[in-house]
């Protein structure tokens, strides 16, 4: 298996050293070139799972293997795009994309790569701009170019379009689809939007909460580009929605009963 998450568990310990378990026994196998979305109620551990794959969070239990090799720390074989673009403000757009290439590629190769990926996200014209001179959507495109430029095996995206308006998001969806088909990357994509997940992915993995776990795993064979009006899309949306509503209601009820008992 390309990316294998095996019996994964994560606990955080708070100040009083009491441990809080976000999830346990997560099993997830992802094939190469697959586009997998992760859906789930807030707090179920999607970002935590993604950070663990990235190597930014320690693994409490189980293992994550990429091409058979166990993940222990962060590395350039896994690129990550965060909800906030996280660009380096002291560097211009091109220098940001060059950042991960320093030391791995020759100067000329690096420069050509940076140009190529900036072109891919349609930002060639802005390569000498500073990042704060760009709109949110443009910044996120730079972040995508930067993550792709270092040629990762997996691209991890944590609600990358969450802070953008509908229009921009729509444009970036199409760009991402093109990039994905062009680069043949494996993508693990966290989102809150059911429509976004269904529109983009080969597979939608639905997580539940308390404890965090995987409650459903849909494979989507529909041809792209997918239309929102499509019957099969609507049916799938319905199914996922029902699943999620159940989970969210569970959380709400639990929180409400807490409020009452206090």
């Amino acid at each position, binding site marked *: 298996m390309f990316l294998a998450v095996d019996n994964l568990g994560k606990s955080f310990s708070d100040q009083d050293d009491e441990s809080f378990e976000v999830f346990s026994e997560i099993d997830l196998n992802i094939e190469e070139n697959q586009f997998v979305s992760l859906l789930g109620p807030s707090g179920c551990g999607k970002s935590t799972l993604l950070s663990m794959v990235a190597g930014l969070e320690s693994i409490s239990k189980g293992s994550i293997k990429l091409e058979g090799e166990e993940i222990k720390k962060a590395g350039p074989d896994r690129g990550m795009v965060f909800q906030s673009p*996280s660009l380096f403000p002291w560097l211009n757009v091109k220098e940001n994309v060059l950042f991960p290439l320093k030391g791995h590629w020759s100067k000329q190769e690096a420069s050509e790569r940076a140009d190529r990926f900036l072109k891919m996200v349609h930002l060639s014209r802005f390569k000498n701009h500073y990042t704060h001179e760009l709109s949110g959507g443009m910044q996120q495109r730079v972040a995508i170019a930067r993550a792709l430029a270092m040629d990762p095996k997996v691209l991890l995206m944590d609600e990358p379009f969450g802070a953008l308006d509908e229009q921009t998001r729509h444009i970036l969806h199409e760009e991402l689809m093109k990039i994905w088909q062009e680069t043949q990357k494996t993508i693990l994509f966290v989102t809150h939007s059911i429509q976004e997940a269904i529109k983009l992915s080969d597979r939608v993995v639905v997580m539940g909460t308390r404890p965090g776990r995987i409650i459903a795993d849909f494979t989507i064979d529909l041809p792209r580009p997918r239309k929102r009006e499509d019957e099969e899309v609507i049916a799938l949306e319905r199914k996922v929605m029902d699943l999620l509503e159940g989970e969210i209601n569970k959380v709400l009820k639990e929180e409400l009963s807490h409020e009452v008992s206090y």
Partner: protein
Amino acid sequence: MKLAIKRIAFLVVVLGIWQLIYSIGIFENIVFPSPSKVANALYTGFADGDFVKALGASFRHLFMGLFLAILFGTTIGVLLGKSRQADETAGMYLIALQSIPSIVWVPLAIMLFGFSEFAVVFVVVLGGTFVMALNVRIAIHSVPPQLIRAARTMGTNGIPLFFRIEVPSSIPYFMTGIRLAWAFSWRALMAGELLSNGPGLGYSLRYAQDYARMDQVIAIIIIIGVIGAVVDQLVFSKLEKNVMRRWGLLKT
């Protein structure tokens, strides 16, 4: 342009009031010289080279002291910023030290090093180091964790992470530190020189006082004020603003 006119007009009014008080004769002439007398003292001070020599000495002390203050301050600041242990142990004392007015160090410096120029430099160093250290510490702490996480996913760790992310990311606060270190050092310099055996602007000030030359006293105060303001406005504030703008921390 209009602003410049307003500012000049304000100055003229102040000078007018000054002249008026002088003309009415509320104070004795010896303690309250006329504007023209002070202007004359300024002119002769520069013409016969006394002020130039004093300024040269002052700037020598200042640059040596400020250079060392920035060096020591940065070292201490990075240490406290990077090591939680060090910060928990010594951070509190740094704030205490920073709050000590630099003139307080003068007796200590004189007892340690006598009435030497080195004593003056010592006071300047103490004046600037702590505020520099405090700002560098804040600078390191203010590096957005999100940027560090992003850099780590690009395989940047350890020492490269420090030089490629933490250092550039802290530069705006670092610049604030340098501006404040300059301001504190400048004040410390005058305190130190006032009680020294010269040469230096502060020493010239006391010398003028000893000979009851109020015109020179005021002339030197004006020089000190003008240099303080000009260096701050033309050098450090400008530098800081440029850096802030470049880092996107300032809306233009």
